[in-house]
């Protein structure tokens, strides 16, 4: 496992720490990139000697004071140290796999740096590739320098994730492209430095110290002179031109006044480097906090983290990863276990609700039983009414019609009516046969009566004969 915690666990949070000769500063950004908090603590001027931490205890206390003052939300930290402690070199190798370049650089290290190979930590990053060759920047630092820093930082309770020279961090913040040059002029109260940067790699650094006998004007003059010398040297080499170079002013007292003064002496445009912190003294700490974290193995960034520290992190990460995985798996399984229960409870609740709804409706319907009974009774009455209504018809009109059709010579003395057959039976006397037959025909012609039966015996006598006759009334419905 060659990964840093922050590499695999994307939500790891860290703050940026810049170490200067007389001050340590830190900046923490929120996940959205806004400045969350920042703090600074002064350290003794002699804390470092010969690029080595010599006052370890006071440095640890300073770090603790810094953390206490800044109330940072994390113990992970990205550290940048003075460029002067580092060695920056360029090298070209054939375009190969990363592992092969690693090996090639390992073979070349002893030639690149003026120190025994065993005495330095180094890291490299790809700059550009051309004609089958990869141009890489190699940065080295003495082990004694970094080891003393790492020990103190861990002893203070912090967990360093990255170490890089401050000029690299600032160059990254400026965002210079390859073939673009920046003269990063850092002006602090007791010292200054001028670093020539191409893209994100530093090419040359010079340090200007504020001596005890120096006046501020002399200090300013020395810085400007150093800047002029570097600019002139690299201009003469054909590297620096007005269209590809600018001077970047940063540091504790890197103010507009300094920039205006230097503008009269240097031909290149001058930019005051500013960050959301609003204080140029925090530029390096901000730059260190602003960049996403990459492990030393990443070939696009510099991280001088010692391998043994990284291995401790790797092991710690592995354990926490397994623990986290197990915990998440358990939570997942618990959720899977819970889902059927939740579904069952939900279904039972739904059933209960529907049962209540059904009971309410049944109760409503039961309370309306009287209405239902009324409807049923009414329906029965209607059926009876429809069936019986035709029977309500009486033979009144037929009787009236019969009376109207009875001629003068016919005397009806008896009439019987049977409604089941609509049958009328009459009997009486007739003055003569002709009249009787005419009466019969009149009944038939009236269409009110049918099936007229006149027995022949009624026609036997010519005159004054008794007769009987039956006929059926034609329903007018």
């Amino acid at each position, binding site marked *: 496992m060659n990964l840093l915690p922050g590499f695999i666990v994307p939500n790891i949070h860290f703050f940026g720490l810049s170490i200067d000769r007389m001050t340590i500063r830190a900046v923490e950004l929120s996940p959205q990139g806004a400045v969350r908090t920042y703090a600074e603590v002064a350290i003794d001027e002699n804390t470092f000697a010969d690029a080595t931490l010599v006052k370890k205890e006071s440095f640890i206390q300073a770090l603790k004071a810094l953390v206490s003052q800044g109330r940072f939300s994390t113990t992970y930290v990205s550290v940048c140290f003075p460029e002067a402690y580092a060695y920056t070199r360029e090298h070209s190798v054939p375009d190969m796999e990363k592992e092969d370049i690693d090996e090639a650089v390992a073979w070349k290290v002893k030639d690149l740096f003026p120190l025994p190979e065993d005495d330095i930590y180094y890291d490299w990053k790809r700059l550009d590739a051309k004609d089958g060759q990869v141009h890489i920047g190699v940065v080295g630092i003495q082990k004694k320098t970094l080891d003393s820093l790492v020990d103190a930082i861990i002893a203070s309770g912090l967990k360093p994730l990255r170490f890089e020279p401050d000029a690299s961090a600032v160059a990254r913040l400026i965002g210079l492209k390859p073939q673009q040059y920046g003269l990063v002029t850092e002006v602090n109260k007791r010292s200054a430095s001028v670093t020539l940067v191409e893209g994100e790699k530093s090419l040359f650094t010079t340090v200007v110290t504020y001596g005890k006998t120096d006046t501020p004007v002399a200090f300013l003059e020395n810085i400007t002179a150093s800047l002029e010398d570097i600019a002139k040297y690299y201009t003469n080499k054909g590297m620096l031109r007005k269209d590809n170079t600018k001077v970047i002013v940063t540091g504790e007292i890197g103010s507009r006044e300094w920039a205006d003064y230097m503008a009269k002496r240097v031909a290149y445009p001058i930019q005051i480097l500013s960050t959301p912190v609003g204080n140029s003294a925090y530029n390096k700490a901000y730059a260190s906090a602003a960049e996403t974290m990459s492990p030393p193995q990443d070939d696009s960034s510099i991280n001088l983290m010692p391998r043994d520290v990284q291995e401790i992190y790797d092991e710690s990460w592995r354990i926490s990863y397994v623990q986290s995985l*197990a915990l998440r798996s358990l939570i997942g*399984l618990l959720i899977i276990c819970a889902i*059927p229960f939740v579904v069952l409870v939900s279904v*039972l609740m739904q059933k209960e609700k529907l049962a209540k709804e059904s009971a309410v409706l049944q109760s409503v319907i039961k309370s309306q039983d009287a209405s239902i009974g009324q409807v049923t009774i009414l329906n029965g*009455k209607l059926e009876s009414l429809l069936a*019986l209504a035709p*029977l309500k018809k009486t033979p009144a009109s037929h*009787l009236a019609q019969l009376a109207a059709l009875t001629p003068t010579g016919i005397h*009806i003395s008896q*009439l019987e009516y049977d409604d089941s057959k609509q049958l009328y039976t009459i009997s009486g006397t007739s003055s003569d046969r002709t009249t009787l037959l005419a009466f019969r025909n009149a009944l038939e012609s009236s269409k009110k009566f049918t099936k007229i039966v006149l027995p022949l015996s009624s026609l036997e006598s010519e005159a004054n004969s008794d007769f009987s006759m039956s006929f059926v009334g034609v329903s007018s419905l």
Partner: protein
Amino acid sequence: MTILWIFSGVALITAVILLPVVSSQRKSIELLRNEIKALQSDTELIGISKEIFGSQQPKIDAISRAFPDEETIIRFIGELETILKADTIENTFQVTDAPISESGKLYLLYTISGKAEFGKFTKLLSDIEKMPYLTHILSISLRTPDGFTKTVEYSFQMKVYVKNPFSIR
């Protein structure tokens, strides 16, 4: 890892046990939903019936009156007597003591006889027909010694349908 395996097993067993239960409960819910739909439909019908009862009350009352009950039969008799007095010279009527059942329907059988002008007699029949009761004249017997122009002796049987049930007091 052991705990993970145990939890996996528990999760699987839980799912296997509970899924059929959930499935059967869902079927019950479906049945309940159908029952509720039917009940809602019944409730709507009841509501509509009530509306009809409200808006058609006069007609419903008329239908109800067509079958006199033990109380309203008195009114029927009164109305019948009024008609008889108006249309006949003399009259008598007899009625069965108890309603007679016929295919689930009850009726009282009246036998009415008397004397009347023939024209008034036909009017009597018409007036009975116009009464707001279900009546049915079964047979008529007329003696007309003077023909249809003068007084006739009449006798007829008539069913008067009554409410079922009809109690005798």
